[in-house]
């Protein structure tokens, strides 16, 4: 077995006095598509946000390709890495957000190009070509000069995914990317993610779309009260949940 792409060890995270992650362990191999499910407050989004240091964490470690993310330990003391180093490490992952978070003062194309020119230091024409290629991939090349205010929710999310993936990250993080969408716009976004999965992109997907999780993932992680409650391949897990808690969760989310 090859070295894991992502390795999370004993991850602990608190907001004030509330401990939301109580020791999470998770190993992801390159090419795996993993859905993280669980009820609100179970810690799934927080776990995702720790991976790219949008949240600091107090205990445990996260490694991408063996490289420790966010913190370094010398002489037994754990210190946050310098901001510049963290910025570089964040570019190892791409993230799509529930609220899209496109930059409203830039066109779709400029949104995708920004990281390519500033972080990847690509010349403008190469960045433009790359960005147009990805906008084409998500079916929005004909919308490239539109500002976000002129795009639908589904289009916004597809541009946001193009923006993240154009950076050629080692790992894509999807944080409830369809939760803010009207029901009829969900399918186009899920289709884009499914296509990327088929291309071999490694992904961690936090989602409430059980059908999608079932179809797209190699593995499903069920988070429960800050811990991994159960994990396994979706067919086994959804058919025969081995914990009471998952059975109840699946029943309530009306997976069909």
């Amino acid at each position, binding site marked *: 077995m090859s070295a894991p792409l992502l390795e999370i060890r004993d991850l602990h995270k608190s907001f004030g006095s509330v401990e939301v992650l109580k020791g999470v362990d998770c190993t992801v191999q390159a090419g795996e598509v993993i859905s993280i499910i669980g009820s609100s407050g179970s810690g799934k989004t927080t776990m995702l946000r720790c991976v790219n240091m949008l949240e600091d964490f107090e205990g445990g470690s996260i490694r991408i390709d063996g490289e420790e993310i966010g913190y370094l330990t010398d002489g037994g003391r754990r210190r946050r890495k310098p*901001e*510049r180093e963290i*910025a570089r490490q964040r*570019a190892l992952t791409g*993230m799509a957000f529930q609220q899209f*978070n*496109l930059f409203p003062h830039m066109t779709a194309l400029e949104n995708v190009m920004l*990281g390519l020119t500033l972080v990847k230091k690509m010349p403008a024409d190469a960045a433009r070509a790359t960005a147009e290629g990805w906008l084409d991939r998500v079916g929005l090349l004909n919308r490239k000069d539109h500002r976000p205010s002129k795009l639908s929710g589904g289009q916004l999310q597809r541009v946001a995914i193009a923006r993240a993936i154009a950076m050629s990250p080692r790992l894509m993080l999807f944080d409830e990317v369809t939760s803010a969408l009207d029901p009829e716009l969900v399918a186009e976004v899920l289709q884009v993610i499914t296509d990327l999965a088929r291309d071999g992109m490694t992904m961690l997907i936090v989602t409430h779309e059980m059908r999608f999780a079932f179809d797209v993932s190699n593995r499903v992680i069920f988070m429960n009260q800050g811990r991994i409650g159960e994990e396994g391949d979706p067919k086994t897990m959804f058919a025969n949940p081995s914990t009471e808690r998952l059975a109840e969760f699946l029943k309530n989310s009306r997976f069909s």
Partner: protein
Amino acid sequence: MESPTILELIWSARWPILYGLGTTVLISALAIAGGTVIGVGLGLVLAYGNLAWRFAGRLYTDFVRGTPVFVLVLASYYILTTIGLDLSPFQAGVLALTVFCSSHVGEITRGALQTIPRGQTEAAKAIGLGFGQTFRYVLAPQALRLGLPAWINTAAEMVKASTLLSVIGVAELLLRTQEVISRAFHSLEFYLLAGALYFAINYAIERFGSYVERRVATD
């Protein structure tokens, strides 16, 4: 001998009036420019500084904003001398207005930056932008648009506040107008003229503001 018409009177007073107008524009421009530069820095401290810096910034902003600008002008001219800082009336006046302007711009900047959704910063971080890049390419353009209307207001306030410098003897438009009136009378006409000139300056600022606002509009 015929008495001169009002136009002849204004014409004969054109140099002092124009000189006063130029001084008013210069004072306002210096105060707005200086106040904006300091104010944006102050806004950054208020929005992103650590606790100690924020506290210091908050103290400065609230103190200055809570003080009448007239008191700042007098203090700048009369009090700074007692600690050995000998400023000319012009320098003292510009300093007072700059300080006043900076506190307002600081508050505008902080407000604008904090209105931008958190997700904007997070999205910028997620693609690997550092703080400086995030600020320059993502936050500043949005803050500019959000803060512009309030900034235009403040700039116009600065022009009006510049009249207070007449009290410490700065020969700006109001003081020049009063000097002309003391020689030529016709106070109504000359005050109307001064009023029209102040309006012209602020109208120009307002036009400039709408021009920039159109340029940075996001839809």
